[in-house]
């Protein structure tokens, strides 16, 4: 699954650590999601979508 997490984070001038703190997860997890090594669960995807005030499909896309 592809995602726009890195772009959305950069638009807000957030570091991976900032995003990790906002989501209550590790920076390592943010990196794994951003680089496509790990697809988040639906609950975490909803938390990410809520944080960016976007629908999930605006952040995560099919390969």
């Amino acid at each position, binding site marked *: 699954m592809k995602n726009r997490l890195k772009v959305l984070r950069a638009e807000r001038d957030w570091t991976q650590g900032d995003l990790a703190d906002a989501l209550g*997860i*590790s920076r*390592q*997890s943010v990196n*794994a*999601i951003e680089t496509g*090594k790990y697809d*988040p*669960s639906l609950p975490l995807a909803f938390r990410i979508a809520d944080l960016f005030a976007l629908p999930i499909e605006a952040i995560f896309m099919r390969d």
Partner: protein
Amino acid sequence: MRAKDHPALRRYVRRFVPITFVYMASIALATFIIADNAPATALTIGLALLPGLAVLGWLWAMARLLVELDDEYLRMLEVRKMLVATGLTLAITSVWGLLELYSPKIPPMPVFYVFPIWCVGLAIGQLVNRFGFGDAGDCG
């Protein structure tokens, strides 16, 4: 938050270290007190069960780590390590068991080795995470 700073991991280390001390001390004590081929008595069985309790403690600590690790990605890394360890242990003990069954000259493997083999499997699981998936995690 860095992975190694996760509270669940810190608790895991705080539990693991004293349990390891109990294991090593009780193994040393049992080895020192119980002579080779000593008959089974309440004392020998009790001394042998002490490190067994420590092994149960390790298993409890690892189970608590999975329950308390609320970061799903880090938890996935830990679970993958345990799956690799379980697969390796089953493979080695099952094949060795068949060799014992059909090749009488093969020495029997003491059941004692099952847990150490599983722990070696954890280390291999860490390498699988590192080199197979590009992320070892910081959970040891």
